[in-house]
């Protein structure tokens, strides 16, 4: 069957009260992938996730991990081999951060010292100060608690990570950080991650593969995020993905938008035009000696650029990047011009917002 880390085979779950939470689910999660289960609340995502580590037992069908039927593995042993992160951090309130992170290694018989060292290492991995190790969960912010929850799940270095709406309860700014860090972790640690969310944006951002669940525990579509946005399998998926799916789809369109020229100034005060003749002259881009953009200055300030410079701040656009990133770069730039750079970060020119919008229009038209 190849390298499917997790396989659902005709799995059904009917709770004792008669609710069928998952109905005939067959799905393969490829090894090393980040697979997202997405769908409205109550459609069986959590139930499906919890059948992987036997927190819920299927009524019918089997769940396999690396080809082995999980019902043949003792529960505790199975769960220790999978990290589990949930929405409510579920940290032990009477134990310190380090003790919490050490939970699974300690259950596996590791010495207190070894577990502690590993826990402190993990604090850094997940972007927390080592000094927080002695704190108690109640002394942490919600975002910090979620980070500790992730560290706890990673502590025994399990090949599989199960995450149930881990970032839903934190504020949007922290959520964006956590999402970025998860993608980063995924690059560094080779893990199979199953991630549950009700948020389509999060699914598109994180998932290599997205499984859209419909009410009644039906798997409506299972494909790459691009495919789901472009070709929703049915009316349900189309409605769930929503009206702004056109905008979401921009995440995947790469388009060559014509570059425009920009006036630059270097540290010595020498000016130049990069990318062609500069259309706009009241904003000047300061560049360093390597030709990388440093910040925007208005032409009237150019005498004292060093302290007056607006840091580039906003995102930079890499040609070939998505339309969405181009639009982001333009909108976040003080001059309204997106700064385009090559792979070494050297300035290539700028994108005018009108050119970006025109490219977006073309994509929309081509899809009608």
């Amino acid at each position, binding site marked *: 069957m190849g390298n499917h880390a997790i396989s659902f085979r005709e799995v059904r779950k009917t709770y004792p009260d008669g609710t069928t939470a998952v109905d005939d689910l067959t799905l393969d999660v490829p090894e090393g992938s980040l697979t997202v289960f997405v769908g409205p609340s109550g459609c069986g995502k959590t139930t499906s996730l919890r059948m992987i580590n036997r927190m819920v037992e299927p009524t019918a069908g089997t769940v396999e991990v690396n080809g082995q039927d999980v019902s043949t593995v003792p529960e505790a042993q199975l*769960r*220790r081999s999978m990290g589990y992160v949930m929405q409510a951090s*579920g*940290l032990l*309130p*009477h134990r310190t951060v380090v003790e919490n992170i050490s*939970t*699974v290694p300690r259950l596996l018989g590791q010495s207190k010292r070894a577990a502690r060292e590993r826990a402190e290492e993990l604090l850094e991995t997940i972007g927390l100060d080592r000094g927080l190790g002695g704190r*108690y*969960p109640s002394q942490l912010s919600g975002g910090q608690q979620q980070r500790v929850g992730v560290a706890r799940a990673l502590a025994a270095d399990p090949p599989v990570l199960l995450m149930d709406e881990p970032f839903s309860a934190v504020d949007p700014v922290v959520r964006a950080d956590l999402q970025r860090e998860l993608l980063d972790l995924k690059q560094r640690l080779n893990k199979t991650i199953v991630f549950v969310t009700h948020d389509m944006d999060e699914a598109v951002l994180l998932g290599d593969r997205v499984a859209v669940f419909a009410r009644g525990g039906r798997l409506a579509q299972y494909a790459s995020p691009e495919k789901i946005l472009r070709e929703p399998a049915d009316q349900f998926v189309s409605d769930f993905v929503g009206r702004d799916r056109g905008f979401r789809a921009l995440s995947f369109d790469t388009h060559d938008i014509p570059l425009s020229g920009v006036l630059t100034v270097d540290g010595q005060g020498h000016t130049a035009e990069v990318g062609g003749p500069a259309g706009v002259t009241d904003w000047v881009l300061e560049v360093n000696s390597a030709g990388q953009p440093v910040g925007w200055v208005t032409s009237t300030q150019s005498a004292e650029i060093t302290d007056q410079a607006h840091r580039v701040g906003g995102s930079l656009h890499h040609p070939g990047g998505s339309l969405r990133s181009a639009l982001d770069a333009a909108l976040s730039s003080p001059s309204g011009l997106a700064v385009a750079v090559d792979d070494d970060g050297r300035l290539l020119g700028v994108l005018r917002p009108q050119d970006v919008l025109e490219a977006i229009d073309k994509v929309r038209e081509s899809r009608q």
Partner: protein
Amino acid sequence: MNLLSGMWQWLTDPTNWTGTGAIPARMLEHVAYSGVVMLVAVLVAVPLGLLVGHTGRGAGVVIGVSGALRALPTLGLLTLFSLLMGLGLVPPLLALVILAVPPILTATYAGVAEVDPAVKDAAKAQGMTPGQVLGHVEVPLALPVAMGGIRNAALQVIATATVAAYINLGGLGRYLIDGLAVRDYSRMLGSVLLVAVLALAADAVLAALQRAVSSPGIRTSPTEK
């Protein structure tokens, strides 16, 4: 006013502080009765409370029976047990154990039942066995609440252990019974003060113990929610 000065006189009379029936000996008896009663009550009520809280089974029965037991007057029980079993230490100790069990049992049960289900669920999902969930999660979180019940029970037991004197046993109750017989109110009042001092001292010790078993992570609000 002369009642208070009489009490003071009784308390400070050196002859009351030496010999077999003297204050230190009576206090020791009182502490011994209370200590034995508390030990037995804790050994019965804490494991039972943990079991009921952990399994969630029998909670209704436990709460109902505890309430019923609380309604029984200790003196009545003592009389009944003495009639059934004859004189001796067992009837008063048993009556006092029945007094002490309900507060400890309900507090221990409540301590376990109050543990956040998400915390238990997460502990289980990390791969803890049911026994480990009990030992690593439920017991440490329930202990501060259970200690509250133990303090409560200890106060009641120390105050009520005076009943042992009704059936010719020792303890500080001796001064109450004997004082009443000869209308020596100074002696009675003095012994009441001694009982109160003993109760407060025991409570202070148990409060320190309660603090010691409460993790700083939960100490700010040991009975939150």
